[in-house]
């Protein structure tokens, strides 16, 4: 029965992997400012990886943050949807091929949605989260059948 309600309110969890903070500011904007208000889509930010349904990853995965990212991703239960926020986790962006960059993100985890931009517009984040919710609904359906 819980799964029926869980579908309607996925919880968001964000991981900063050495981002310049631009995308994190935009994520905070999307969540906190009533103008964009991601909670209209039924989403809520959570502080614990164990409660996460949709994972938003920012930053180009620096050498220092790599082990933390792997540990954090291990704690997030399946089914989950991973969204890469900004060009850094998608392809490395302007930091691509740098000596201290271990990215892109899809080396470590199966990414579902990419939202590119530098930084991204709050409206684009809403777009990406809406797509992620669609994927998450399908994933949870398959998960409960299995």
């Amino acid at each position, binding site marked *: 029965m819980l799964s029926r309600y869980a579908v309607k309110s996925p919880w968001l969890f964000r991981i900063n992997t050495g981002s310049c903070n631009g995308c994190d500011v935009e994520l905070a904007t999307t969540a906190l400012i*009533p*103008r964009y*208000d991601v909670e209209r889509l039924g989403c809520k930010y959570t502080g614990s990886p164990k409660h996460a349904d949709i994972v938003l990853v920012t930053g180009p995965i620096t050498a220092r943050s790599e082990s933390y990212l792997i540990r954090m991703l291990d704690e997030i239960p399946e089914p989950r949807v991973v969204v890469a926020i900004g*060009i850094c986790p998608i392809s490395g962006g*302007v930091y691509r091929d740098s000596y201290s960059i271990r990215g892109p993100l899809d080396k470590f985890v*199966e990414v*579902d949605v990419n939202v590119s*931009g530098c930084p991204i517009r709050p409206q684009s984040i809403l777009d990406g989260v*809406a797509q992620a919710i669609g994927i998450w609904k399908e994933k949870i359906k398959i998960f409960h059948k299995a």
Partner: protein
Amino acid sequence: MAQFFTIALRNFLKGPTTDPYPFGETYTPENYRGIIAYSPELCIGCGTCEYVCPSGAIKLRHHESGMNFSYWLSTCCHCGNCGYYCPTDAVFNSNDFHTARAQSEKYDATINDDIASVQCSRCDAMIPRAVDALLARAYDEITDTVRHRASLCPDCRRLEQFERMYL
């Protein structure tokens, strides 16, 4: 204090300030730097955009019948350098912000267009064409002489110059 109440009353009457975006239209500024727009008929294939692109999103490749312009959205940082330096305004930032893509579309080039070369009007060499926007930058007015010289390959232009001056 009076000003505060004026604003509070105005906001109370104006209704919610939430942007209706995923369910409705949103406001995008005219000069918002979004996904790149490209017009192949204006492009001369000079490669300036590729040179100034800090994230390597633009690639120009040579092939038999001309050049190929490709743009990879997943690494574009929307800095606007390409549009700023483009001599003919063939590349510029549109205000399209719809950049959320599924993982399966990650490596798809958003723009992939061919820039056709033209034949020299005197020999059969293939040269990059000169568009009017470029000629307008170089000359005060575009006369038939200017157009004729622009249609020649460098070798033929040198020959013609020699014939005009010494023969």
